[in-house]
Each structure stands twice: as structure tokens, then as C-alpha cells.
């Protein structure tokens, strides 16, 4: 079944609104992304699977102005060394990052970036923020903007 597993070679889309200072276009045309662009209350980052929306990032952006960034699932799964640390900075729990389908009635392409073991409340301030920074670096390093409508 197509929906059962997100393959390493799949691209996932994340929309970033123009209105909330979540990204900035520099003078040289490159784009800087805010860490807040990946923040999520449930610590599971919503994305859309490109192959389930006809590789059309407009599906993800909708009619709102902004950009859509693309991430390779392999790169997400390759995020290493994310840990929960004690106050002295000693790692006490390692996390593996994965992407899984999370289809919604109105959006069968929906998927989520999440941690194994699951992030706890205390990870909102540490590990999850570092994951957001890592995702920003992934996008910025490759400038993987798949749609600009701003």
C-alpha cells in the first residue's frame, strides 16, 4: 500500500506563511527560514507527501501567499545525535527521527515528522528546538524552496 510507509526517496512539503516573519528573502535571492516555521504544539511536524499530491506544492500552500519547502525523507531520518540531556549537559535519552503517514480526511497526503522515543513535555524546550534548527539548516543549505508565491 502506498500509504503504509514513507520511502526514503520521498519529498515532503511544508508551507511557510509570508505574513508571520517565518522567512526572509535576502538581497542575493536566498531565503532564510525561522526555526518557528517548524514548531508544532504536538511536537510532530506536519508535512505533505509530494507523491500523494501529484508533486504539486500548491496543494500544500493553498491560496495563501508564502513558500513551500521540500525535504528529502532520507535527510530527515538521517538527523543524528538528538538527545534529551540532564542539566549538566549529559545525554540521558537518544531520539530517532522518522516520518510516518498521518492521512486526514481532507488531506490524504498528510504525514508527520516525529521522534522515537516520543518527545515528552520537557523536550519542547530542548530537543525539539534543536530538531527545528536542524530542519532549518537542511532547507537553507540546499535552498530547497519548491514554490514561491509571495
Amino acid at each position, binding site marked *: 500500500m502506498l500509504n503504509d510507509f514513507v520511502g526514503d526517496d520521498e519529498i515532503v512539503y511544508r508551507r511557510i506563511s509570508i505574513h*508571520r516573519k517565518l522567512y526572509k528573502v535576502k538581497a542575493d535571492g536566498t531565503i532564510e527560514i525561522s526555526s518557528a516555521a517548524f514548531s508544532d504544539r504536538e511536537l510532530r511536524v506536519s508535512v505533505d507527501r509530494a507523491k500523494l499530491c501529484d508533486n504539486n506544492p500548491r496543494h500544500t500552500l493553498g491560496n495563501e501567499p508564502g513558500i513551500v519547502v521540500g525535504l528529502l525523507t532520507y535527510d530527515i531520518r538521517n538527523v543524528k545525535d538528538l538527545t534529551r540531556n540532564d542539566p549538566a549537559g549529559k545525554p540521558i535519552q537518544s531520539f530517532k527521527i522518522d516520518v510516518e503517514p498521518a492521512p486526514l480526511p481532507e488531506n490524504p497526503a498528510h504525514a508527520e515528522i516525529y521522534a522515537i522515543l516520543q518527545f515528552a513535555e520537557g523536550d519542547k*524546550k530542548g530537543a525539539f528546538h534543536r530538531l527545528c534548527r536542524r530542519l532549518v539548516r537542511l532547507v537553507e543549505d540546499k535552498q530547497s524552496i519548491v514554490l514561491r508565491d509571495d
Partner: protein
Amino acid sequence: MPQITSTRPGDLKQPEKRIPSGTSRSSNTVRTALSSILRLLFAGGVPGEPLHQVTFPAIEDFYGDSPGAFALERDTQDDIHTEILPALMEIRDLAKWPAGWNGYNALAPGYSAIQYAEHWIELFYTEILDLGMIWLEPNVTASAEGEVVFEWRHSINRLTIYIGKQSAEYVKDWGADINTEMEDGLANSTGIRQALWNWLMS
């Protein structure tokens, strides 16, 4: 809980000083400037936007309205630190953001977080001036949790501050490696904040 993934020599090992309870001349000046601008902006209110009626009186409560403060306000009009005013105005603008502002499931920025963010950025600004260093305008946005988020970039260094109700946390990164090029922790003391700025500008 603060979580520090790694440290680099000389980074955040300075003795910590607690947040000062008093106010400096420069911090009063910033308050004065903000208060004056808010009076101009919100004088008479804006029809259909009752939020202003809630937020504007609150800033006077937060900053105090003693006769001495107003005397200082009159005396220091020529000494307005305009550098920080854009950031302060952007922080206040967050109060208008609705739930779902990011197109996903974000909470509206919290009022307590906004209040504390104003206080925190003002402290940070004066602490940077005390170091004799220059100020860089932050990107001001919010997190899905309703926190206020400040971000600075200088060279390869990135500094992100998350402001909650009464606490500030930082993430600093100078590369993509989570284990060796990122660090996080609390940013609730002068020593930490000044060390962060020294690092950012290094």
C-alpha cells in the same frame, strides 16, 4: 529544564548575575519611548479592535506610572534609543495574531509571554550597551506554543530565544551537527545573556 548539548571553551561559563530588579536610565528611556509611541498610536482607540483597549493600559501597569517615572519621561525625550523600538512594536503586534496563525495548529501568542518578552528584550538591550557592543535588530515571530521568538544571525552563528511566561530559553548553533554545533539552555541571567551576545558577535 535547561539542556546543554555541548559547550565550547569560553562560552557560557561566566558567573551568573540575576536579572536586576531595578531599572537603569537607559531602560527607563526605552520604556518612555515605547509608552510615547503607544500613546500616539492608540490614542482614542481603533474601532473594531478592542484588543488595544486591553493591551494599552496593561503596559502602564507593567512599567509603572509613578510621578517620578513621568518626570523622567519628560526629561529624557532627547535620549530615545530608537534602535529597540521596532522590536518592541513587533512584539506588541503579536497580540493581534489569532490561533492558527502559522496555517497549522499554532496557539495565539500568549499575553504573558508578550509582556515578559518586552521586559526581556529591554534588559538584553541595556546589557549589550553595557558591554559596549552594537545592537542587531532581531527577527520577531512566535512559536506554535504561543511563545515569543527572537532570532539573530551573525556570520555562521544563529541565536534563537524562546520567551514563555516568565522564562527565556536559547538555542545557539554554528552548524548543522546537533551534537557538536548546537547548544541550548536558559537565558534568564545577565551573565548568560551577555555571553550569548559575545558569542553571536564573535
